[in-house]
Structure formats: structure tokens, C-alpha cells
């Protein structure tokens, strides 16, 4: 198992927590992390459909292999400016 941190950002932060530590199997992906997160916070079931994953502050793909200590975030479509 590896330990990662999920930062809940944008609308997802309204789930109640901002930072969620997770343990996931070696080779897990942002898609796996999202699934685990949604099982804990069912109100976030829209995450996988709506957001783009980011790892260590860079956009990435849903099948990116996570490493121990990674910071993962699921980025809703942005609306700054």
C-alpha cells in the first residue's frame, strides 16, 4: 500500500473536509483514488465525470501511476478571471 493525500478543491470542498489522507494499493491511479473517496463521501459521485485529475500540482491522466506521498486533487472546470 502507498499513502497519498487528496486535496478537495472547488465545489468538492463542500463535502466537509479539505484534506483526506488515503491508503491505496501500489500502482493505484487517480481513478482508483476517486473511487475510494466517493465510497467515503457519496455526495462526491460526480467527481469522476466532471473533474480532471492533478498530481503534485500538475494536470495528469486518470491512469497515471501514483507514488507514495503524492498529493492528488480533482479539478472541476475552472471559472477564474
Amino acid at each position: 500500500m502507498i499513502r497519498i493525500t487528496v486535496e478537495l478543491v472547488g465545489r468538492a470542498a463542500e463535502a466537509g473536509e479539505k484534506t483526506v489522507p488515503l491508503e491505496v494499493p501500489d500502482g493505484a491511479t487517480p481513478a482508483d483514488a476517486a473511487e475510494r473517496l466517493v465510497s467515503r463521501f457519496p455526495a462526491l459521485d460526480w467527481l469522476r465525470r466532471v473533474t480532471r485529475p492533478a498530481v503534485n500540482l500538475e494536470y495528469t491522466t486518470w491512469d497515471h501511476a501514483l507514488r507514495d506521498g503524492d498529493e492528488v486533487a480533482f479539478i472541476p472546470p475552472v471559472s477564474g478571471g
Partner: protein
Amino acid sequence: MIAEITAQPITLDPLIAHVERPEAGAVVTFAGNVRNHSRGRRVEYLEYDAYVPMAERKLREIAEEAERRWECRVAVRHRTGRLEIGEPSVLIAVSCAHRAAAFDACRYVIDTLKQTVPIWKKEVWEDGEVWIEGEGEAPASVCPP
């Protein structure tokens, strides 16, 4: 270069002062202000939220790319928190040798910011509120468990 996310009010003067230099004959600025209406509704105020460490990194990348591509100097700040009607949420100053490049670089910074920097606005009206995601409204906010 300045590329910052801040919870404090922002003003243009320090950004202009940062980019002005003897080689630059053109300074272009952009201000994004809070508008009192959106999609036919009257807006009371906006709340901006950011994934700050990633937003600052992305903002810096955009400013660096603009500086490289147009040989300009860029200063950009985006504010978070509650903003009243008329207040600036984003300010940009760009200086180049000539005006065409300065206009293009400034436009690149604001357009790219709006596409990639993880910042979100929530519109608050008299009788409700909604997060904006991309060009449209997000579905009703998640309910507390």
C-alpha cells in the same frame, strides 16, 4: 515577474510599476471586475476560491510563457474571497517594446488563465447561489452528509 493569488484587495499601480522599464514603449493592462449581472440574474457579490499552490504554479507558467513568446514583462494577481460589485478579481500588466506584442501577450495571459488556473467563482444572488464551472452553472451544491 509577479504571478500571485491573494486574499487581499488588488490594485493596478504596483503591477504597472513592476513592468515599466526603459526598453518598453508599451504597457497594456487588463482588469477583470465583478459584474452586477450574469445570465440574466442580478448578482449581489462573488466568492472566489482557489487551489492556491497549483493556481500560483499555473499562473507563473502562463506568465513565463508570455514573457518568452512576446519578449515582454508580466505582472498578474488574482484575488480570492468575497468580492463586491465593481471590485477587480484579476489584474494584469504587460510591458513590451511595441504595442502589438503587449496587447497579444496580455490577451494570452487572461485567456489562458481562464482555461487552466484552478480558481472558481460562486455567484451569490438575492435568493440563492451557485458555483460556476467552465462557462456554466454547476449542479446544486453537494448536501452535507
